[in-house]
């Protein structure tokens, strides 16, 4: 492998506390090294920012519902140029739901190298892996969903933590999953009967368990299994006015639980797309932000992390494992609605959505995300996402960086809104003059999410020994003052190196890289009860045989990278 020296850039690395010093970064054999003599390639990064490759903790980029989003929206392909086939670059199209090729190229253009697919239905795991395998360049991992799984509901109802843990370890191994995702706990199972769970004490029909028990139980099991990532939660009541009380009730469930892992992770709960969960008011008429209340709680509770899910004010495609939410969204906008309920496990829904800056609710949603990120006290625990493509497509991250880093850019948007006064009135955004620094942006987009995922020792930073994932942006923090330049520079990385291989050279894709896929293999104490339960449940209730359920690592994964854990008690 080539050795590379990146010279003279403004290096920003929160892992080492480096805040824009002019430094060289050396790469050899796929890793960052202390120093290097006679590099094969030298990159002159003078006047440019050098950061670790970006890490996206929550994005819907691969799998069954993403592909429904692609195939049921041919019109989405007309909203942007379909980039032609060119050299090693595959043709790449789609706007809010890009193809796997475009997904990879657009993440690369933004300097991102690690992306977590945030919702994998276990029965569809093979599909998720096939798409990830075909997505070039970026390293990926997928989180299977557990919050409505019949085994989990049964074991947790009876307080059988050992059994829940043994089952979850088996499912992670079978689906080649990375961690525990929980979407609308209990609510999606209720949706199989057309119902929902809107508070943490709404019982799940028939299963007689509450979201409170599911969330607490999954957090406990997560630490029992010493997983690299914490419970990754999309709580109940998403997207409804007044839901912030449900959110606070849910976050409080983390109190008293201690992280237990060897991966440097300090949180026990990651709450995703918190923007969608921080709404006040009782209807859309008196809808307002409760971002401050929710962020105050997170600021004072170090065992909780969050990502925002910024609304970008675009036409997009919403897709979530929260089936009932999509049904209700469709009742509001009357566009097309797809839904898939998955036997014994979970469900999902998909609806196109237009976030218009002239609709005041959208304007307030936009404000809440920015408000929360600007009120956050520790950006190692608050991450930049759009819940792609739910609140907006991921390729808008550079625009969000611009809004976070420039009060002027935020005011410019507010000033073009038809309901500016009303929007300003419903959140505190207008009164916040904070402008985030590149250092804080690097925390939100690299160091922070990498640590929360338990990947902090290998990605998200520039420490010698770490995987050489490095982005060089044509942005000079000493001389640049135009906020537009932030958006442009962070969507046009000049160089991108992934595992030591040059992917972008002078802005051109020169390699489809050598992506890898992480998964977690936890050894647990042999558990005959759970083995028997799995065997019987497959025979009686599933429509695939147990022996045809497990994802074949060698057929369906490119460069599988297994994280081994011993959780034998």
């Amino acid at each position, binding site marked *: 492998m080539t050795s590379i020296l990146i010279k003279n850039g403004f290096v920003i690395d929160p892992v080492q506390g480096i805040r824009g010093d002019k430094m060289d970064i050396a790469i050899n054999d796929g890793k960052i090294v202390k120093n290097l003599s006679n590099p094969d390639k030298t990159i002159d990064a003078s006047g440019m920012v050098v950061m670790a490759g970006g890490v996206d903790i929550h994005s819907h980029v691969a799998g069954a519902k993403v592909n429904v989003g692609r195939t*049921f*929206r*041919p*019109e*989405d392909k*007309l909203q942007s140029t379909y980039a032609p086939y060119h050299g090693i670059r595959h043709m790449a199209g789609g706007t809010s739901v890009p193809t796997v090729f475009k997904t990879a190229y657009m993440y690369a253009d933004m300097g991102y190298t690690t992306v977590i697919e945030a919702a994998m239905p276990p029965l569809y795991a093979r599909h998720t892996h096939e798409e990830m395998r075909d997505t070039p360049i970026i390293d990926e991992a997928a989180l299977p969903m557990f919050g409505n799984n019949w085994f989990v509901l049964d074991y947790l109802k009876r307080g059988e933590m050992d059994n829940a843990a043994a089952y979850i370890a088996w499912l992670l191994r079978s689906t080649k999953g990375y961690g525990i995702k929980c979407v609308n706990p209990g609510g999606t199972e209720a949706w199989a009967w057309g119902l929902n769970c809107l508070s943490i004490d709404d019982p799940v029909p028939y299963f007689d368990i509450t979201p409170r028990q599911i969330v607490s139980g999954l957090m406990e099991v997560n630490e029992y299994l010493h997983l690299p990532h914490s419970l990754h939660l999309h709580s109940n009541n998403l997207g409804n006015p007044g839901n912030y009380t449900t959110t606070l009730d849910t976050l409080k469930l983390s109190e008293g639980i201690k992280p237990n892992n060897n991966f440097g992770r300090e949180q026990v709960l990651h709450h995703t797309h918190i923007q969608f969960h921080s709404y006040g008011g009782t209807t859309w008429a008196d809808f307002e932000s409760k971002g401050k209340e929710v962020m105050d709680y997170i600021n004072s509770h170090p065992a909780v992390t969050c990502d925002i899910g910024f609304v970008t004010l675009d036409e997009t495609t919403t897709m979530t494992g929260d089936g009932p939410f999509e049904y209700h969204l469709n009742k509001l906008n*009357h*566009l*097309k609605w797809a839904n898939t309920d998955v036997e014994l496990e979970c469900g999902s829904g998909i609806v196109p959505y237009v976030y218009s800056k002239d609709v005041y609710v959208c304007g307030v949603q936009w404000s809440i995300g920015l408000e929360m990120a600007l009120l956050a006290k520790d950006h190692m625990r608050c991450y930049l996402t759009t819940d792609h493509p739910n609140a907006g497509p991921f390729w808008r991250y550079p625009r969000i960086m611009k809004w976070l880093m420039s009060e002027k850019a935020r005011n410019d948007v507010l000033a073009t809104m038809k309901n500016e006064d009303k929007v300003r009135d419903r959140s505190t955004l207008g009164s916040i003059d904070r402008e985030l620094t590149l250092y804080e942006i690097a925390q939100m987009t690299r160091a922070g999410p990498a640590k929360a995922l338990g990947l902090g020792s290998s990605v998200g930073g520039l420490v010698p020994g770490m995987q050489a994932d490095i982005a060089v942006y044509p942005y000079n923090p000493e001389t640049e003052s135009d906020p537009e330049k932030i958006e442009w520079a962070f969507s046009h990385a000049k160089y991108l190196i992934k595992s030591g291989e040059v992917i972008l050279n002078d802005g051109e894709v020169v390699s489809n890289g050598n992506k890898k896929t992480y998964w977690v293999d936890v050894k647990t104490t042999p558990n005959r009860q759970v083995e028997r339960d799995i065997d019987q449940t497959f025979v009686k209730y599933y429509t695939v045989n147990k022996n045809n359920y497990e994802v074949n690592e060698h057929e369906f994964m490119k460069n599988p990278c297994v994280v081994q854990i011993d959780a034998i008690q």
Partner: protein
Amino acid sequence: MNTVTITIKKQPDLFLEADCFTPDALAGKKADEIAELPVFIGKTVEKIGDYFTVSGETGPTADETRLVFNGDFTKVKYIGARMSTGEVVLNGDADMYVGSWMSGGKITVNGSVGHFAATAMSGGELNITGNAGNYLGAAYRGDWRGMSKGKITVAGNVGSDCATFMTGGEIEIGGNVDVHVMTHADGGKVIIHGNAKSRLGGQATRGEIYLFGTVDVMMPGYVKAGETELTIGGTKAVFTIYDGDQGERHPTRKGLPIYAKLYLKK
């Protein structure tokens, strides 16, 4: 207004895609420059001059440019597609996508056109003296935003799926129309002087259909709501009004549902 005349001199072996046959793309160019512009046959790129003779002069802007096409264009797609202004006159028949996505200007076809003419039209005028194929003034696949503005006139017959997902504008058909007119429409107007087959206004929430001739099978979700005398397309007549599609969700105004209207000449 300056005129450029494009005459077909050789029929392509397969079908030819001429995305640049619009006043917007050709304005300000000389005839010999136009002859050098690319057209596509499958994956091959060829020149306009290989298949067409180009004469005359364009205006400095699209606004002042008229394109006249002479000959048999039944193997040529995209004439006037995405045009925003200026004028196109086609003396002959054309293939698919005539005036598709057009937002302004005027197209006159002295002949017939193929399928997908005026897809998602958002302005301007399209006049056809012959017939039009399927999907006239319809939305692109998957889009809920069909024809929104502008006027289409067809003297002859029109194929199926006319005005799907229409939200505004007007289509006037001199002859007969095949199945599915204004399916899913949420506005706009279609006038049919000839006969219709079936499925008028299926799943429509708003919009108006005027039918002078007969319809083979009515949609069950249209309910009689009175009679009225109207002058439509220059003809005065008494029409029976139907409200529908009752099977579909309907917006309300002042607490009352708004329906799509079907006017059948008595």
